[in-house]
Every structure is written in structure tokens, then in C-alpha cells.
């Protein structure tokens, strides 16, 4: 699905990631952890081609990212659902339109019942007509997850998706991600919430990666 081969990334003020090699196998569930500023968000941005590596190769769906045109990047992103901590919506459109935005931009017409089911699945069935500024933090994160999965992506990348949520809401979001993984989706969640990771490991066979000293390593039992 997504492979990093000896990847480095340099923001200009020194190397943030170095010698990163990793493969996200289809249907796998990974957590990526590490302190703030360690490079978790940068890793995810490399994984959906918002950034290009300064060294090494990132391959997404068997294509090296540097060989992708801008249109290729757009098409590739339709197969990758992204959920950010500071999720952004089109504030002038109602929730239902925001969630179905990926369908709209790709020229596909979705079944309204599917959209209703999806909103029900994330617990936002009653808020289809609400505008994004009217949503709470947890509702925005679940809406972001709904938008990320509406195209039926192969991979879901979540960057601190529970960062602004209380524990109950975090567990609810985690449950949704686990369900998606059980449907065969490849999941990568960047988080510094170790309690969330421990809880998840009781529900799913997740690998935990840790960024330390610019490199990614498999976390051990000390987690």
C-alpha cells in the first residue's frame, strides 16, 4: 500500500526524519507515537504526498511519489482518507455536503441512503443539515472520519484524531477505526495518547511504531 524506503525529510532547519523504512501492509493497523514535534504529522504528510521526501523513496499504491503529477496526487488521495486533529470543513456547506465532498470532486454521485447510513454510523444522523461551526469537537472528528471513508478508501490516516476529545469520545472514535480495520481498511493513527493505544491493543492486532531520534522503530513492551 504505502512504503517508505530509507526516507529522510528536512524542513530546512535540520533533518526531522532520517533513514525511515516502513511498509503498511493491506489491512494492517498501525499506531505511530512519539513526543510532540517528533515528526508524526510530517510522516503522515509524506504518506499522502502532501510533502515530498528530501531523500529516499515513498511509494503509494506502487507509484513513487516523485513520479506523480498533481492530478495523480489528487486521484491518489481519493484512495486515502485523512483525518486531522484540526480538521477543516467548508463552513458554508451543511455537514452532509461536507461529508460527501470527496464524491462531488471526483464526479461521482453517491446514494443519499448510503450517506444517511454513514452519518448514522458515526452518530451524526441528526446533524446532516448542521453547519460545521455548529459542531462540537467530537462531532467534527466523527464527521471528518465519515468524509474520509465515504469514497471507500484503501487506507485511512489519522493525525491525532482524539487530540481535542474527552476519553469517552476518544473511545467512540477508536471503535469506529477498529470497525473500519475489520472491514479490511489499512489504518495508521498518529497519537501521543498511550492510553488509547493500550486500549486499542485489546481490540485489534495493532503494531505500534515510535519516532525516536528522527528514526522510526517498533515500540516494545515498555509502551
Amino acid at each position, binding site marked *: 500500500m504505502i512504503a517508505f524506503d530509507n526516507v529522510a525529510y528536512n524542513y530546512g532547519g535540520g533533518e526531522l526524519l532520517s533513514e525511515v523504512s516502513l511498509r503498511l501492509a493491506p489491512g494492517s493497523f498501525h499506531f505511530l507515537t512519539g513526543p510532540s514535534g517528533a515528526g508524526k504529522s510530517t510522516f503522515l*504528510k509524506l504518506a499522502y*504526498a*502532501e*510533502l515530498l521526501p528530501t531523500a529516499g523513496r515513498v511509494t503509494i499504491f506502487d507509484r513513487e511519489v516523485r513520479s506523480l503529477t*498533481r*492530478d495523480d496526487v*489528487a*486521484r*491518489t*488521495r*481519493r484512495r486515502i482518507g*485523512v483525518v486531522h486533529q484540526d480538521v*477543516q*470543513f*467548508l*463552513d*458554508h*456547506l451543511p455537514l452532509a*455536503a461536507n461529508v460527501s*465532498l*470527496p464524491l*462531488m*470532486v*471526483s464526479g461521482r454521485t453517491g446514494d443519499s441512503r448510503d450517506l444517511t447510513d454513514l452519518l448514522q454510523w458515526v452518530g451524526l444522523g441528526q446533524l446532516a443539515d448542521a453547519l460545521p461551526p455548529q459542531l462540537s469537537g467530537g462531532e467534527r472528528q466523527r464527521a471528518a472520519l465519515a*468524509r474520509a471513508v465515504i*469514497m471507500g478508501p484503501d487506507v485511512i490516516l489519522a493525525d491525532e484524531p482524539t487530540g481535542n476529545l474527552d476519553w469517552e469520545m476518544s473511545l467512540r472514535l477508536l471503535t469506529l477505526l477498529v470497525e473500519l480495520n475489520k472491514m479490511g481498511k489499512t489504518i495508521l493513527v498518529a497519537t501521543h495518547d498511550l492510553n488509547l493505544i493500550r486500549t486499542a491493543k485489546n481490540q485489534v492486532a495493532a503494531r505500534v511504531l515510535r519516532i525516536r531520534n528522527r528514526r522510526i522503530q517498533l515500540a516494545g513492551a515498555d509502551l
Partner: protein
Amino acid sequence: MIARLRLLVTPDRQADRVVPPSGHTAWLTVFTAATMTFLAVFALALSMASGRLADAWADALARTATVRISAPPDQMEAQTFAVLEVLKTTPGIAAARALDDDEQKALLAPWFGPDLPLDALPLPRLIEVTEAAEGYDSEGLRQRLAAEAPGAVLDDHTRWRRPLATAAARLNLLGGLSMVLIGASMAAMITLAANAALAANAQVIRVLRIVGAQDDYIAAAFVRRFTLRALTGSAVGAVAGLIGVALLPPVDEAGGFLTGLGFQGAGWLLPLLLPPVAAAVALIATRTAAFRKLRELP
């Protein structure tokens, strides 16, 4: 390419909704297009009227010539007769006649007043020559006049026609240049408005990129909007400009240089071409600005 064009011209209500309705850039574009088109209508009218006027002057002068005879008083009659004979037998001359004293006095009156003592002045005799459609050989005529009437000089108005032709060309050039400058100014202002709209909608663009929108799709949402605004504004400006030109004083009242300012016949339809041109300018300006902005984004 066809798909891109279709994306650009096909109204897509859903796609148009992704960009929030904006305030000042919308009005700025409509106002700019209306104002520029209004000015363009006048530049077009001025250019066409100048061209017609210069053509009329040049045409009138081109079909006439003057033979001026400067001779001692006792030879004046003989040389005048000789010149008229030469002109009668010259192919390409339709008519020739010597101006009488009253006509010469009328010509000089603006400079010397109406009480000019013509007899006391050694004035040359003027012969008005009207050219036939096929024209005449001016060089051959000069040689014959030199042989038959040494005091006769042919003035075929070349030295008058040349600056008029130059002025006409310059006026047309200025008219064209004005149109180009108006178009360029409109493109610049619409580009600024488009850039402002793109900057104000940076978050919208970022969201669209994340969910997989291609640059064509994002650009088209802005381009369609700006093109429609320019078309609307320009149509208003064209109608206002046409009304303004139609309300100019009539030919007989204005007289002088203003004679014929405006459009004639099918020329009244020309300003109707300005709104599509304005829309095309807006399309190109917005599309260029949009793609430049989008290329800055990952």
C-alpha cells in the same frame, strides 16, 4: 482537453457551491468589467469616427489638385490659357477651371479680411483640377506644364495628404492601443480580484485538495464565477456605453471634429462583441491566477 473545457463551461451547481459566495471581489469584478467596457465603447466609437473622418478628408483631397500660376501681369492670361489647354488634353483630368477674383478673395478673407484690394497684390492665379476616377500622371503633367507655362506649379495635395494619412493611422493606432490597454487593465484588476478571492479561500482550497480535487476542478469553480461576473458587468457597461454614444449631439448640431462621432449602420453591433471579449479576458486572467496559486500548494 475536451474534458477540461467541459468542466469549465458546464454549469455545475454543486461544484459552484464549494466556493463560498464572496462579497467585495464579486462587486469589484462586476464594476471593473462594466466600467472598462463603458470606456471601451467610447474608445471604439472615437477610433471608428476618427478613421471615417480622416478617410473623408484624405479622399476629398486626393481627388483634387491645384495649379498655381505665378507670372508677370502681362503674361498671366496667356499662361492661364496655356495651362487650361494642357489640362484639357491630359488623360485622367475630369475638369479644370480657373478661380475668379471673388473666389480667390473668399479664400484669402480669413487671413486678410473681406476688404482685400486684390488688384493691388501680385497674387498667383489658381486653377482647380478635379481628378477622374482613373487618375493622372502627375510627373508627366508637371513636365508639360513646365514646357507650356513656366510659371505654373502643380500641387497635387501630397504634402497635405501625407500628414492626414499619418494622423489617421496614428488615431487608429491610438484607438487600438486604448482598447488593448483597457483590456489589459481589466485583466490586471480581475487578476487582483481573483487572487484576493483565492487567498480568502485558502482553507477551501486546502480542504478540496485533501479530499482529492484536481486543480482543474478547483480552478473551474473560481473561473466560472469570475467569467460570469465579467460577462454580466461588461454587458451592463456595453449597454450604458451605447446609450451614451446614442445621446451624443446630432451631426448637424455638433459640427466640426465631432461630426460623425459614434457608430454607423452595422457598427452599432460592434460593442456587443465586447462582453464576450471581457468574459474571455476574465476567463484567461482567473485561470492563470488560479493555477499559479494552486501550484504553490502541495
